[in-house]
């Protein structure tokens, strides 16, 4: 059987035109997806059932036992951390927020280690953006700054920018200009019309120079700024102002390098400035397919996109104090529930070391780096393959992710709802 219009649960592009061939409740072929998406659909080696650490090895346990363990761990904790959430469906994220509130824990998602700085910048200066289809249909200028979509969001170029024909651009490849700005010549740079190479750490200065030029203050610009010649800066600024519609996409090349959120703020303010001359938008290239959904869910339920601390009953937000990294690095947290992410692969060493010392339960279909730090792991269905639910594309468009096979695994939402109900019995009133 071929299932059409399947949504790919891998990256923030959330391509929804994938065709999946299913035989005997197994995915046997995938069309339209990129290699990243395809390998996720075809992924194998699921953990067969819940496991519990037993000395140096593992012991199989039942779902009931595993859930009981996780519930007891959270009930017993003084400062529980509920982390992850970016690769599961919104319905599970909602249960997670309720649970964090009830156990007075910290709830955080992977934003705090990728686009956290972007959100901090947005909270200072706002965010002029648009949906991806607006760019596809209108944008005659695209800037990729500090990101490499060919690697991380392979179909961004074909569905929305470089190769995507749109209503006002009948021949996108010819009619659209693509500028890539990065510290090294990436593969994306190879397909750009213009590549701007910046010295590492120089993004802030280059953005400032562009802002000055757009404002007409060309005389103050030195011969070169962070390795970019003055002439090139003038040309880029002119191209931006002359575009009918410009779209600026940025990635971790500016959020996680020197300047961090200040870089993003500067980029947003450049775009604000350009809007006085033409139409311009800016957007972050969000990585995990539903990291943006996690931000959305957290926001409508708690008021904040990530790093929320319920220790005092209210929702309290102060990145630098209330993200997963913060509470782990301070060795404050005394139990951790991890859902749909792999912190051991991405967190700084001291944080991972602390994880090794406290009880940890991971809810995840696959064994990963974090498994080594778990006391219990509970395998679940993969959203988009054997579980359905909601995800938010990087531009905020929500889609319903389909279930294409029946695996028998419970979904994240089911496991978390059972846990929540048990915690409620103890904690309510």
């Amino acid at each position: 059987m071929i299932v059409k219009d399947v949504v790919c649960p891998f990256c923030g592009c959330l391509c929804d035109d994938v065709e999946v061939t299913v035989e005997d409740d197994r995915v046997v072929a995938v069309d339209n997806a990129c290699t990243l998406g395809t390998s996720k659909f075809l992924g194998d080696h699921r953990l067969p059932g819940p496991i519990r650490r037993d000395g140096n090895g593992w012991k199989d346990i039942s779902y009931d036992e595993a859930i009981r363990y996780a519930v007891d761990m959270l009930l017993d904790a003084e400062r529980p951390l509920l982390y992850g959430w970016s690769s599961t469906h919104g319905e599970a994220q909602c249960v997670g927020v309720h649970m964090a509130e009830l156990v007075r824990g910290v709830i955080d998602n992977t934003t705090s280690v990728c686009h956290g700085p972007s959100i901090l910048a947005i909270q200072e200066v706002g965010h002029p953006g648009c949906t991806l289809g607006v760019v596809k249909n209108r944008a005659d200028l695209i800037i990729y700054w500090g990101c490499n979509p060919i690697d991380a969001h392979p179909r961004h170029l074909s569905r929305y920018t470089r190769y995507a024909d749109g209503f006002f651009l009948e021949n996108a490849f010819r009619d659209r200009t693509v500028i890539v700005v990065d510290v090294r010549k990436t593969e994306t740079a190879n397909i750009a019309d213009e590549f701007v190479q910046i010295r590492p750490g120089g993004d802030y200065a280059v953005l400032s120079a562009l802002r000055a030029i757009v404002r007409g203050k060309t005389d103050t610009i030195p011969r070169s700024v962070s390795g970019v010649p003055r002439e090139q800066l003038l040309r880029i600024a002119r191209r931006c102002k002359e575009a009918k519609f410009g779209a600026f996409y940025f990635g971790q090349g500016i959020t996680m390098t020197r300047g961090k959120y200040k870089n993003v703020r500067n980029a947003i303010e450049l775009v604000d400035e350009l809007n006085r001359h033409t139409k311009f938008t800016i957007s972050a290239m969000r990585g995990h397919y539903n990291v943006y959904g996690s931000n959305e869910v957290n926001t409508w339920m708690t008021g904040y996109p990530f790093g929320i601390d319920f220790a005092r009953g209210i929702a309290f937000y102060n990145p630098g104090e209330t993200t997963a990294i913060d509470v782990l690095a301070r060795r404050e947290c005394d139990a951790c529930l991890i859902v749909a992410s792999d912190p051991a692969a991405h967190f700084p060493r001291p944080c991972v070391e602390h994880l090794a010392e406290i009880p940890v339960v991971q809810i995840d279909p696959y064994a990963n780096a974090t498994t080594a730090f778990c006391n219990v792991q509970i395998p679940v269905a993969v959203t988009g393959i054997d579980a359905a639910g909601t995800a938010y594309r990087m531009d905020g468009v929500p889609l319903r992710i389909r279930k294409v096979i029946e695996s028998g695994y419970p979904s994240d939402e089911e496991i978390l709802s059972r846990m929540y109900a048990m915690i409620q019995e103890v904690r309510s009133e």
Partner: protein
Amino acid sequence: MSELLIRNACVIDPINGIDGETMDIAIRDGRIVEDVNDSTAEVVDAGGALTLPGGIDSHTHICGTKVNFGRYMSPEDMRAGRTPRMGRMHATSGYSVPTTYGTSYRYSAMGYTTLLEGAMAPLEARHTHEEFLYTPLQDTLANTLFDGNWAVMEAVRDGDTKRVAAIIGWTLSAVKGFAVKLTNPGGTEAWGWGKNVSCIRDPVPYFEVTPAEMIQTIVRANELLHLPHSVHLHCNNLGTPGNYSCTIGSLGLIPDLNDRRQTLYATHVQFHAYGGSGWDDFCSRSEPIARFVNMRPQIVIDMGQVMFGKTTTMTADGPMEFNLYRLHHNKWSNHDVELETASGIIPVLYRRKNLVNSVMWAIGLELALLTENPWQCLLTTDNPNGAPFVRYPEIIGLLMSKRYRDAEFATVHPETGHRVPLPAIEREMDWHEIAVMTRSGQAKALGVLEIGKGHLGVGAEADVAIYPIRIDEVDPSVEYQKVVDAFRCTDYTIKRGRIVSRRGECLVDGNNTTVWVRPKISDSYDMVRDEEFVRKFDRYYTVRMSNYPVQEEYLRRNLWRRNLCIETEAEL
């Protein structure tokens, strides 16, 4: 079977012609009935307190992409309104844009049981519906945006009203919307190029239709679909000096096509009632607008009252928000939605010491006081654009008391008196008029009387608000503070026969319904079978047509959650 008996209620129920009668209200299984078994029913003694149908907000921004972005970008606003988890109540955050629970609890404490989200982009409808699920204590409905819809504009250009109706009908059913909203029609498409339309005769770039043509055609299409609500219009040119003439021009386009309700609902008219040629001679033009409305039963407006203090502005009117940003230089967010619409958000502070803000404050009140028939001017702040909804009680006080208005007027910018007629207006509204402006008028305008909203007659949904005030003992003209306090917090808010809020404490976890429409359309007008529509959809949207409709899962039903689809017979 569950029964509830409210005793000694001093009832004002304008739809049923009840004006301050003390009576009992019997409720069985969520509806008002003739009587219940006195000995077994749960009894609530209202003690002679003012009892009204549950409040209805016919234009508020509470759920969806843009509202959530208002929260996302504003931790300072989130900090300004925090409550901890308590009893059945979840933690809440936010003052001008509360979290969904915050919105729901605070509205419920004020006696509101039904809310219409003012602007939902079809492509992002799923988001609005997700937040509706977490707005547990009110029935929710969504205005659906068509102001920059490409397929609609093309059909308008071709003069094909039936096709316009067919596209709207398909979209509303697909995204589970309730009504047709036009926000700055044509302007949101022009904003795709950083431009705007100046008024109703200004053509939209490329599509070559004018806002006037769009409004006229869509109004007729709306009636072909026999939708419960009329077209809901946010006029072009919001917020600019002299825009009142554009507003009158827009209202003048509207024939009287429906004998059960208005043919056009014009929202937040305060923002569209400005005189002057610039900020220097900015002044009120509430009088010509109210005069115009007084002569046309086919128009209903809402106030869009401004109250002094901090708030957040958010609207699909992207170009207007950018202009505001250029005035205020505060943070600015924008979000254009492919093939459909736009939106923008900026925080604002309305100051008494600011002349323009003072004039704005006066205009909203003037519109309400100068519109003779309260059924034609409903109480809103365009929450949170003019002020957060928690300020409604003060507005009620101002409408009921000349003395209160004078006291406030003494504190606004001293020049205001030369710019506005407010000080000369003597009218003080009575309890009955307030009941019309806060529930019954909304129910009639939205066309939801038929599903039992906005009144307390037998068969109505048992949504009831009991306010701690005795209208025979209080003179609102003098004791306006008592009025304000009473409307801040009910003794009881009852939703479909269940007590959901008691003196501000919310007692249950969920009792809401999503109300949406499905016009029945013949196969020959079914857009799914229309090759051109399908081809353009596939080519220009970034979402596949099969993934576009909001699935039934987003109207989840359980014991207390309902999914209420109003089917209409379209003339197509």
